[in-house]
């Protein structure tokens, strides 16, 4: 079964990564202010696009605003990431 990982990037933004059974990891969505929208996207993928996956969500670590000054300087699209990493 595939895995959908909901995690935060280095700046506190929420992101979604898809891990295939063979271990391949890919970024699906990124730079979201809240986890809520990312979880909705993951559920839509399971419900509507028939992605056979379990959803793994990291606990909140920080909010994007708390790292805003740093993110404004050098934010870039993150690499995909597993929950718990």
């Amino acid at each position: 079964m595939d895995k959908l990982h909901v995690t935060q990037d280095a700046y506190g933004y929420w992101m979604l990564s898809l891990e295939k059974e063979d271990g391949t990891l890919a970024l699906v969505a990124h730079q979201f202010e809240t986890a809520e929208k990312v979880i909705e996207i993951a559920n839509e993928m399971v419900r509507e696009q028939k992605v056979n996956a379990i959803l793994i969500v990291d606990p909140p670590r920080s909010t994007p605003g708390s790292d805003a000054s740093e993110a404004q300087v050098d934010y870039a699209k993150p690499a995909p990431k597993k929950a718990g990493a």
Partner: protein
Amino acid sequence: MSLIYWFADGVGEGVNKGGPDGQTPIPSVMVRWARANGSPSLIIYGGDAYLSGDTKAFSEFFNQVDGDVGLMCETPGNHDWKDDPDLPGIGRIPHGYDSFWQQHPESKQPIDASKKGGARYEHFIDLDGWRLFFLDTGDYDPNPWPGGDESRVTWLTSHLLPGQVNIIFAHHSRLSRGRHGDNDDLDRLWRLLFDADGTSRATLMLGGHEHNVSVYGPRSQNNPSGDSVTLDKGIHVVVNGAGGDGHYSQGLFAHGTKGDVFNDDENFCMTRITLVDQRTLEVDLLDFGTHAKGDPKVVPEAHLKIQLT
């Protein structure tokens, strides 16, 4: 000459912030810039007031555009259609969207309350010899356009102007690349934009829904996901759903057709259409970067110049 601006998928609750202070909603930065620097004739919001198109979401939208929708219209998005209680005598509608735009007759978004469903919101604007159609594809998942209402088909086909001076705006695009991919259930609409011999009746179809940017060359009636064709047999497709919410990756495992002109899944962007004259239009991508800190840059690689013969 008229200037038209499009942004989509970026207003309401929980959208990204940026600007010089780092705390201004991205859509506010974009709209303020267009008003101050862009001489807009029209600002199109391509749909989705988050989270679910309810009154609260549209109230937030109104604040984010500084309480001024005078130059604005909105093609409804799927999130707007999440707020859809059945109302007696009217039927299924996106309630928050419908109420909001009815309350703003000063806007460019009409509501025809005599009609049902998406037909209530579909309209066209004639500008500088071009006809701009605004269609409602927001109910795509349960009821793809025309949602069982054949009068919408008749209305569209009977109002296309001769030649290719027609431009189609809708939340969903026939082609896109990302977590959604191509919207195959729009194929009927797509085919209506061509004559029986494959001659194109439009120059451009602009949509969002996919939270990124893809720019396509002219795509044909029968094989839109194939190679680009000559303009007389094709329609340019521009996707820009990078209006303020998070982004969808166009990389590994993404669905759909990748743009052959330009792609971006990292920056917040507006699309500007310049109606140069009755036969010429230009399309530019205004890239506000990852945090909309200052003036946007025009992306040369995404530029389209369309000259009708």
